[in-house]
């Protein structure tokens, strides 16, 4: 206790030295709002791990003296309640509570609704886990960047998952003839399928789409969907179901003998083997929303060390291995920290929101899955890891086998080009 107070004190004097230039660094804590699903089906596999990571990182940063001496005052908020509730909550956070930054949002629906508020209300918002490519893209390519002056996403969009899956299927299952899709009925599911379908048509034109199903988010009974898919007889079923939906679907599908005939390709299936356990079927194609996998080791030494520390620290605190939402949470909170530090260096003093936003554009910083760059379109770009589930005696759940990493350049469209147009322009 005393030690932390001391370090804070020393940093206080240090910051004064910098603050001589223009703006003194305030001594009040930095208010960070972290919004994730804390209740509902998405809480256990996404929201809680994400929120845990925010808490862990805030704790670690505070122990190291905070951001330029300012402690982080982390406020965890619940993302449940629907889009409209999120718009209202975000407005309250920015206008009434006057937080310094909002980090958050797992659902693409929340992001699409909330991120425009950044410019409308003049608050910094960093989306940390939502996937839709439409979030930062304009109506037609080339589009103007950035779309939002104060809105960011500290990760890559769903293009990497679905392009990665298509590339993987082409490489490992070139004989695939029929595919089908079951995706949640909102932006995330619709866009995931769109990109996957476009990529498949380009890569494997002979493949036929036999069925596309759109269960609502939070559906409880998948029997009708499962048998409809089995009736259509595809080789591979693409799915971006997530949270409780993915678990429920898997359980009911196991009961109906689904996996005996059909292979699933999950665009973000990484958390579920750990969530379902031993019963999780083998041989399913799974993408990790980047290279966020606890058994993955980045090539460069610094990142590899960071990964080792991150997995260890997380497992020590919460008794589980970090899943991809954890990595995303790490990226978001550290993107803010590094951007503030970079901006402070440039302006000499605590930066304004616009200066932080300027610093965050083009920022590159180390993360446990390798260095991450946030581009001029305010979107992160990442490599993508795809593998196949396989049971081993070492872990009580299937792990990934035949891991394949697709480099960022292969799965991310260039700045200003719409993902669909980019895929269609492939030779």
């Amino acid at each position, binding site marked *: 206790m005393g030690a932390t107070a001391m370090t804070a004190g020393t940093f206080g004097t240090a910051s004064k030295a910098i603050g001589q230039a223009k703006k003194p660094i305030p001594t009040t804590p930095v208010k960070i709002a972290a919004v994730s699903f*804390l*209740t*509902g*089906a998405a*809480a*256990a596999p996404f929201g809680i791990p994400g929120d845990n990571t925010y808490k862990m990182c805030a704790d670690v940063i505070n122990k190291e003296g905070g951001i330029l001496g300012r402690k982080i005052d982390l406020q965890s908020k*619940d993302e*449940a309640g629907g889009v409209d509730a999120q718009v209202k909550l975000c407005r309250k956070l920015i206008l009434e509570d006057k937080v310094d930054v909002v980090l958050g949002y797992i659902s693409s629906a929340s992001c699409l609704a909330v991120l425009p508020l950044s410019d409308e209300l003049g608050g910094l918002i960093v989306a940390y886990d939502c996937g839709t490519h439409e979030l930062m893209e304009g109506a037609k390519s080339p589009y103007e960047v950035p779309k939002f002056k104060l809105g960011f996403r500290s990760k890559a969009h769903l293009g990497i998952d679905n392009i990665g899956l298509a590339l993987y299927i082409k490489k490992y299952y070139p004989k695939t003839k029929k595919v089908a899709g079951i995706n949640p009925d909102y932006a995330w599911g619709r866009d995931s399928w*769109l990109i996957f*379908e476009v990529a498949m048509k380009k890569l494997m034109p002979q493949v036929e789409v*036999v*069925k*596309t*199903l*759109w269960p609502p988010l*939070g559906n*409880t*009974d998948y*029997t*009708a*969907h499962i*048998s*409809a898919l*089995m*009736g*259509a*007889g595809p080789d591979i079923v693409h799915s971006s179901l997530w949270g*409780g939906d993915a*678990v*429920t679907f898997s*359980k*009911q599908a196991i*009961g*109906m*003998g689904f996996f*005996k005939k059909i292979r699933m390709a999950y665009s973000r299936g990484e958390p579920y083997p750990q969530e379902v356990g031993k*019963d999780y079927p083998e041989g399913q194609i799974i993408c990790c929303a980047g290279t966020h996998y606890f058994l993955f080791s980045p090539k460069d030494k610094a990142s590899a060390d960071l990964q080792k520390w991150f997995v260890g620290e997380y497992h020590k605190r919460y008794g589980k291995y970090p899943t991809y939402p954890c990595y995303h949470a790490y990226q978001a909170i550290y993107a803010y920290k590094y951007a503030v530090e970079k901006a402070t260096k440039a302006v000499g003093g605590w930066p304004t929101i616009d200066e932080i936003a300027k610093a965050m554009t083009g920022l590159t910083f180390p993360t446990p899955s390798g260095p991450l760059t946030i581009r001029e379109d305010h979107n992160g770009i990442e490599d993508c890891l795809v593998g196949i589930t396989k049971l081993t005696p070492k872990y009580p759940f299937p792990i990934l086998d035949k891991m394949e990493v697709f480099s960022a350049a292969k799965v991310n469209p260039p700045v200003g080009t719409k993902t*669909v147009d980019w895929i269609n322009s492939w030779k």
Partner: protein
Amino acid sequence: MFSALAPARTWVGARVFFEEELEMWVVYTLNALYFAALLFLTSLGLNIILGVMGILNLAHGSLYAIGAFMAAWTIIAIGMNVPTFFLFISLLSGFVLAGIVGFLMEKSLIRFMYKRTLEYQLLLTFGALLLLEDIIKMIWGGQAYYASAPFDLLGKVDILGHIYPIYFLFVMFITCLAGLFIWFFMGRTKLGIMLRAISLDREMATGLGLDIGRLSTFAFVLGSGLAGLAGALVVPTTPALLGIGMEPLILAFIVVVVGGLGSLKGALVGSLLVGFTRSFGIAIFPEIELPLLFLIAGIILVVKPEGLFGR
């Protein structure tokens, strides 16, 4: 760019269905029956309350949720250390707790509403819905409860070359039992006949010297219990979650409206209608399955406003 293809795809889907997927009709039918079974239990409860007391209980879905949470909690609590038989008995805990909550609700709130006008009756149950949703959250928290042991234990069976979980058949069986029981109870026992008398004419029943207060309590408890039982039966196949009762409630509304207010036969036919529309709708017209359901309900109501078996 693919939006324009959506309707076209629907028709292609229909063609593909009739050419290639007809062999799956066994499974589609079973799915429809399974879905109808769960819905029948829910709407039966709603219908008994509506028929006997004349109150549309908007909090019915919350009672369903209470049944689901209670059953999931019990199954998790007793774990795998007991004989399998007890796992299935523990599903009854949902019925019991929902019944108890129904009892408390009737005694503390609903009984003041019999003489009030419609808007107050509906708003009171709406208030109860909001209240119960948060009470569930207070007791069980916002987490998902996975309790799939009964589902996993029963395993699978081969029906005409299709693998099907035995648990779904079990649910249909329990529903048949419950349906037969209610049918027998309402038609043959003295208590049931008294309840029907009330539902036909409340004032006359008072004149006959029936104890309306107690009979209403009984009907409410029975109806609530049935919702709880439906919730309990669903929980081995899907996690118990906040808001789990909302969709069954809406579908139960449709069943009750289409079948006829207060009609048991109507509840059965309505449930089957919804079950089959859903199962085959998802297989043939996946894009418009839900609006299709409401459209069918709407057409029935325009043609026969009192419902198929309404008075």
